[in-house]
C-alpha cells in the first residue's frame, strides 16, 4: 500500500504541480485539493505548497488562511494529521497559528532565489525522519517575505524544545531571527520551512541536487508503517 498525500491549490499557488511530482517521485500518491473545498478527501497527510496565494496581498498567507479548506485542515492538524508548509505554505501555517511566529519581508527588500545551505536541527518530525540531526543539506530558496520573527520568549521556547527544525548556514538570506529556516509544532506533525524541498528531488533539474527528497520519503515511511 502507499500513502495519499494532498496538495492544496489556492488561487496563486505556484508549486502545486511540482509538489505533486515530488510526492510521486518518493513513491506516494499525490491528491489535488482545492481551496474552496472543505473536503480533504481522506488523505493521510497534506502539503501546503509555495506560491503567492491571493497575490500575497495584505500579508503573505493572510487571506488564504481563511479558505474553507483551512477550516478542516486546522482541526485535523491539531488532531495529528501531518502537514508540511513550504514557503507560502509556511506563511499560511503561521497566519493560521498552527506554527508560532510570523514572516516579514526580507531584510534586503529584494526577492531572493538561491541554492541555500541548511542544517537539519530536528530529525524526529514526521517530515524529517530520513535525515540525521545535524545533517547539512542544500535546498533552493526563493521568496520575498522570508524573514522569520517571533518574540524572544517564543524563540527561547522553540530552541529549548528542539522545535527549530532547520537553520540557515553560511548566509542568512533574509534576516530571519536566529537563522531559523523552519520550525515544527510540539507534536512534530506540523512542519514549516521557507526553502523548497520539492525543487531538490531530481538530479538534472534546478540545482541538480536531490537533498529535498527525504522530506517526502520520511512521511511515506511513517504513513505506511503506521
Amino acid at each position, binding site marked *: 500500500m502507499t500513502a495519499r498525500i494532498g496538495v492544496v491549490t489556492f488561487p496563486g499557488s*505556484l508549486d502545486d504541480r511540482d509538489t505533486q511530482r515530488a510526492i510521486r517521485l518518493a513513491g506516494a500518491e499525490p491528491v489535488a485539493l482545492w481551496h474552496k473545498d472543505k473536503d480533504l478527501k481522506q488523505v493521510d497527510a497534506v502539503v501546503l505548497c509555495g506560491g503567492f496565494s491571493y497575490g500575497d496581498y495584505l500579508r503573505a498567507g493572510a487571506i488564504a488562511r481563511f479558505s474553507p479548506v483551512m477550516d478542516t485542515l486546522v482541526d485535523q492538524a491539531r488532531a495529528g494529521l501531518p502537514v508540511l508548509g513550504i514557503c507560502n505554505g509556511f506563511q499560511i501555517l503561521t497566519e493560521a497559528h498552527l506554527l508560532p511566529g510570523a514572516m516579514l519581508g526580507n531584510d534586503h527588500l*529584494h*526577492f*531572493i*532565489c538561491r541554492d541555500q545551505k541548511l542544517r537539519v536541527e530536528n530529525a524526529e518530525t514526521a517530515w524529517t525522519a530520513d535525515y540525521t540531526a545535524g545533517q547539512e543539506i542544500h535546498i*533552493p530558496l*526563493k521568496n*520575498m517575505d522570508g524573514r522569520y520573527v517571533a518574540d524572544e520568549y517564543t524563540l527561547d521556547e522553540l530552541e529549548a524544545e528542539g522545535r527549530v527544525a532547520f537553520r540557515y548556514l553560511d548566509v542568512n538570506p533574509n534576516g530571519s531571527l536566529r537563522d531559523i529556516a523552519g520550525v515544527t509544532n510540539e507534536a512534530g506533525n506540523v512542519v514549516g520551512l521557507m526553502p523548497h524541498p520539492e525543487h531538490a528531488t531530481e538530479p*538534472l533539474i534546478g*540545482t541538480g541536487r536531490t537533498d529535498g527528497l527525504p522530506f517526502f520519503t520520511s512521511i511515506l515511511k511513517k504513513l505506511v508503517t503506521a
Partner: protein
Amino acid sequence: MSRTPLDTVEHAAATPDVELPWAELGLKKDEYERVVEILGRRPTGAELAMYSVMWSEHCSYKSSKVHLRQFGEKAPESDAMLVGIGENAGVVDVGQGYAVTFKVESHNHPSYVEPYQGAATGVGGIVRDIIAMGARPVAVVDPLRFGAADHPDTKRVLPGVVAGIGGYGNCLGLPNIGGEVVFDACYQGNPLVNAGAIGVMRHEDIHLAKASGAGNKVILYGARTGGDGIGGASILASETFDDAKPSKRPAVQVGDPFQEKLLIECTLEAFAEKLVVGIQDLGAAGLSCATSELASNGSGGMRVTLDDVPLRDSTLSPEEILMSESQERMCAVVEPEKVDRFLEICEKWDVIATVIGEVTDGDRLEIYWHGGKIVDVDPRTVAHEGPVYERPYARPEWQDALQADDANKLPRPQSAEELRAQVLKLVASPNQASKKWITQQYDHFVQGNTVLAMPEDSGMIRVDEETGLGVALATDGNGRYAKLDPYAGAQLALAEAYRNVATTGAKPLAVSDCLNFGSPEDPAVMWQFAEAVRGLADGCLQLGTPVTGGNVSLYNQTGEAAIHPTPVVAVLGVIDDVARRTPVAFQEEGQLLYLLGDTREEFGGSAWSQVVHDHLGGLPPKVDLERERLLAEILISASRDGMIDSAHDLSDGGLVQAVVESALLSGKGARLVVPDGLDAFTFLLSESAGRAIVAVPRSEEVRFTDMCGARGLPATRVGVVDGDTVEVQGEFALPLAELREAHEATIPALLA
C-alpha cells in the same frame, strides 16, 4: 467626457463638419482623410479612437512593414514551422507531438516612465500572447539595456525594472531562465526592456485569434476595465516624450500578477475542455485591437455592446473603454452552448467574465453604446489595412568615419602586467561582471523543469518528463556591433544566439526578434533599420531558422540622439534528451580545453575597446554563417555522444571572459597556453565570431579531434582545467579569489 447628443454613426453622417481631435490622437492629416474616405463620412469619436490607436506605429508597423516583409519572402524551408508571422506568437514543432510558441516584445518607454510597472506589465503582455496561442507558459527571459552603470538615473530605472520583472514573473510561477543586462550611455533616456516567453502545448491545442461562426459569443474575461494607459499605444509607444513633465505623463498601467495567474489557469482549463473557437489577449489598444483583429481574421462580422464591459471606473466614455489598456484581460469566442461551462470555469477561478457581443453573418464590426451604434467599420481597415510608409533612408555620412576609426590600431598592453591588469578590469566592468545580484531576484526553479538558467549560454526547459525532450532559448544583441555595421550587427546577434543554443547541446530551430531603433523619421535610423532587417532575413535564410514573429520598437531616442541600433535576436532550439545538455561550468580537473574556430585580430566594437579605451569604431567581427552552422553541428554531436563536459561560446570579452566564467562557476581554475601564430593579447581578447571553448575528457580527445578534423573545424588545444588560478603560461596568473571579487562585486556596489 459625455457628449450630447451621443456621437453615433447616424449623428456623424448628419454632422459632417464637426471637427475631431485627430491630431491630438496621433493621426496625420492624410491618415485622417483616409479614414473619412474609407467610411464615406466623418468617423464617430469611437471610430476615431479605434483607427488612431490601431494605426499608431506600435500597432500598425507602418514604418517597418515594407522591410519586415523580407522575413516572409526570404523564409527558409522549415518543417518545424506550424504558425508563422502575424499571429500572437509563432509556433514551432519540437517533435513527439509537442509544439512550442515563443516571442520577444519590448516595453521600453513605459519602463522609463515607471520602471516597476512598465517592466511588470511587459512580462504580463508577452505571457498573454503565449496563452492566446493555446500554450501553457513555461519560462520567461528578459533582455535589458540601461544607460551607463554609474549614472544616477540607472540606479532609479534598473532596480525598478528588475523588481518589476521579478515581482510579476515570480508571482505567475514562471521560471526566468535567460536574457541579458547591458549598459551603454546611448540607452540613458531610453532603456530597452524586452521580455520574452516560451509556451508548450500539444499540436492539437494550437488556438488562433479569429472569430468564426455566426451566433458564437464574444466573452471578455479577466480584470475590469479602467482608465489605464488610455492612448498609451498611440502616444506613449510611438512618439518621444522629451517634454513630458510629471503632470503631463499619461496614466500608467498597473499590473496584477495574481489576476494574470488566475487568467492562465482558467484559460488553460477552458482550452482543455475545447470550449474556445478563437482567442485574443488585450494588450496595446485594448478592446479596439482585440475586437478588430478577431473580427478581421474570422469569417464573419462582430457586434459588441460596450455597456456590458465590466468597468472599474464608471465615468469612462465609450472612446476610453475602447482605448483602455487595463491589463490582465482576454477575449474569447465561444459557441453558444458552451458559454455556460466557460463562465463556470471563470467563476471557479474567481475571474470576472461577461458576454459582450457575438459573431455576425456580415463583414462589419458594429459597436453599440446606450442603444446607439457608435462604430460601424470594416474591421480589416482598422486592423490590417492601416497606412504603410516607405520612409526615406540613407546611409549616414558619419558611417565611413566611424568605420575608419579602426579599433585594431588602439594601443595594446605592452607588458604581461599591463595585460593582466586589463583582463582584471574587463571582467570587473559592468557589462562583463556577474549579474547575479539581478538574476537572483528571479525565480529559476518554479515548475520544476529548469535544466539550465542564466548565467548559462542558453536557458533550457524540460518539456517531457518521460522522454527528456527539452527546449533551449537564447537571446542576444550587440548594439555596438550594429552601430558599426547594422547588417553585420544583426547577423552577429543571430549568430551568437544560434551558437549559444548549440553550445548547450540543443539544435537551433527558429527565431523571434525585438528590433529596437530610434526614430524612423530620421533617414539614418531608417537605414540602420533596413540594413538590420536585411541582414537578419538573409542570415535566417542561410542558417535555415525562420523568423516566427517578433516586435519592432521605434522612437527610442532623446532629441536628435538615437540609441545604438539594437536588434535583439532570440533563437529557440530543441534537445532530444536534456540529460545530454552541456553546462558552462568546468566539470573535472584535468580535462582538456579546446578552442574551436579561428581567432583573428578583431577588436572593433569589442568589450576591450570600450572598457580600456572608451572607444567605438572600426568594423565588427567578420560574419561567417557557414562556419557557425558547422560549429553548431560539432557542439551538438559532441554533446550527444558525450565527448565534451562543458562548453562556453566566445563573444564579448573574448576567450578570457569565457574561461573566467567557466572557472568561477565551478571553482576550478585553468592553465592556458597561447597557441602558435597568436599573440597573448589577441588570443585572450579578440572577439572573432564562430568560436567556442570546450572541455574534453582525456579519454575522448582523439575521438573529438578526429571529428573536428574530418568536418574541417579548426580545434586548437589551448589548456587544461586545473588549480585555483586562471593562468596564461608565460604571461600571468589570476587567482580565482581575486577574479571572483572583481567579477562579483561590481554590480552590487553600483546598484544595491
